[in-house]
């Protein structure tokens, strides 16, 4: 066991997979010599060489496209988007090429496209986005958002081993703030499985990514007020763990859906819809969504603070729902 930060967990996961499987390689901007803008790939160039850790030009479309091509002929590329905000430059390759090959002509595309998402770092509109919604509606893709170091490592391994294209959205705010003891032996976190972070009886918060910590903080505060909160960490956005979602909804009968992607069209709506469709009789109150307002991510601290869901917002809404 070793105490490992979230970012080191990602690095270790990739490193171990590269050691195990020669077909795994990395490509992206500044990933080699520089070790990546956030140092996720630090040391990898020296260890694995320039043919497996490739410094690319500024060409997100080519990065993902080349990953697709190499995957078609048996490689397992891990493409890095320096900031996940730049994934939009590769949108076409992801949704029209990678996502549809298997369905159309039986060719698997086992690629991973990963990068740092999320705000809270004064990054402004183009260094803080949570893009899962853009790809949520594209069958053929998988999307994961780890919140702990354990899941970061387990999910990157699962993503690399997955036969289909996986979008792996790590949260930059968590990189060095989160750490835990990780087992030495190989482990994988299955894609499509949520996990309970806190058990409770009165109210469920369904969430993922960095918001998991805000939910847990709120749960502590609410416990003081006699409200027992259950926190479900989705971990996978596509596919959703519908069983876990319905189980918690049926258990507490009061649900908050919380995420950092903006409100309208965010993945939360799908969670709400499934509960309304399949667990309606169990509900004792309306399902509440908590998400940032429908704006670009603003930059100045008071604006960004107003934008991001805060613990006090969650506590307030939970109190109200609990009292319904």
């Amino acid at each position, binding site marked *: 066991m070793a105490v490992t930060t979230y970012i080191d967990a990602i690095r270790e996961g990739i490193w171990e997979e590269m050691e195990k499987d020669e077909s795994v390689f990395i490509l992206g901007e500044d990933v080699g010599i520089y070790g990546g803008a956030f140092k996720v790939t630090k040391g990898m160039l020296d260890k694995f060489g320039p043919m497996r850790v490739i410094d690319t030009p500024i*060409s997100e479309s080519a990065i993902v*496209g080349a990953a697709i*091509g190499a995957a078609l002929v048996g490689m397992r590329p891990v493409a890095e988007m320096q900031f996940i905000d730049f994934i939009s430059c590769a949108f*076409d390759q992801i949704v029209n*090429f990678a996502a549809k090959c298997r*369905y159309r002509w039986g060719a698997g595309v086992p690629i991973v496209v990963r990068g740092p998402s999320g705000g809270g770092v004064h990054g402004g509109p183009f260094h803080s986005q949570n893009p899962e919604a853009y790809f949520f509606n594209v069958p053929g893709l998988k999307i994961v958002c780890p919140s702990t170091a354990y899941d970061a490592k387990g999910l990157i391994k699962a993503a690399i081993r997955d*036969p289909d294209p996986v979008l792996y959205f790590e949260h930059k705010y968590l990189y060095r703030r989160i750490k835990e003891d990780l087992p030495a032996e190989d482990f994988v976190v299955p894609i499509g499985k949520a996990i309970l972070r806190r058990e409770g009886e009165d109210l469920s918060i369904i969430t993922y990514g960095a918001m998991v910590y805000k939910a847990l903080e709120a749960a502590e505060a609410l416990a003081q007020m006699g409200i027992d909160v259950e926190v479900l960490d989705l971990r996978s956005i596509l596919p959703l763990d519908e069983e876990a979602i319905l189980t918690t909804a049926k258990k507490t009968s009061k649900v908050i859906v919380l995420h950092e992607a903006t409100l309208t069209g965010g993945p939360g709506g799908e969670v709400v819809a499934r509960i309304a469709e399949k667990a309606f009789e169990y509900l004792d109150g309306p399902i509440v969504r908590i998400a940032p307002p429908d704006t670009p991510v603003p930059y100045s601290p008071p604006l960004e603070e107003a934008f991001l869901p805060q613990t006090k917002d969650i506590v307030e809404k939970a109190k109200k729902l609990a009292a319904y």
Partner: protein
Amino acid sequence: MVERNTMTKNARYVHVPDDETKIRMLHFMKLVREIEDRIEKKLYRQGRIVGGVYVGRGQEAISVGTAIHMEKDDVVAPSHRDMGVFLMRGVTPRRIIAQYMGRRTGLTRGRDGNMHMGDMNYNVIAFVSHLGDNVPVAAGVALAFKQRGQKQVALCYNGEGATSRGDWHEGINFASIHKLPVTFFINNNAYAYSTPIELQMAVKDVAVRAAGYGIPGEVVDGNDILAVYDSGKRAIDLARSGGGPSIVEYKTFRMTGHSAHDDAGYVPPELFDEWKRKDPITRFEKALLEEGALTQARLDEMQRECALIVDDAVEWAEQQPYPAAEEVTKDVYYEGT
């Protein structure tokens, strides 16, 4: 910097096919023509095709003269007017027609239409409608070959219109930096739907752009099968020997509309007349007859053979079942097969 290679005598070419290869290439060109004529001029108009039809009439030499050099493990990423590639990779006319008819035994099992087909068992990557997308993908295939120290090459085909897309630029730039074993063929047929060259780019030759990537570029008469054969081999050999990518631009003309429903009224009719006189199949047949590599009787026989192959393919395809409704959700993701 840009070499020009126009048709005339055999002596100009480094690589000249032997007679058997010449006949073989002629057969494939004629087969492509027969299949596409049948699809566009007959089946489509009779309502026996599902969806749109895109043919490469007049451009048969390009796919045939280049794909003839492919080795078994090479991988190809064709575009929509490269029927020759499929046939030469071993895809049968039966399955191609079934593909156009949306049947379960077509190459995509009814999942996608017309030329949007591929199969890694034949090392053919299915193209997408987003032209130019196949360029970074082909570069990626070549990257894998280089990483694994393999002697295979990737071939990538696009029209001149596709070269306006950013993916084309990014993919070739990437391939050039890493000297990847991939060759980029440009089928410059002068029109991208209704857009003529001068509205597509401000350069006369796509091959001029090769200099911007530090790679060789060549302009070739795409209606001269021997020029295509020669230039294709030189470019593929360059890639295979570690010399990296190159751009080979074949000048030709789209002897039809963008698709079957397009009457191409925007093309000055004189252009059709001019290029009809340069038809790649007619030219080649004439040359072969003149040099005695072919007799008229054999030629007629070849024509009949092609017609019979296509007759058989159509008959077979029309008996094929459509996919079952339940199949619609299969194979979105890996299902263990």
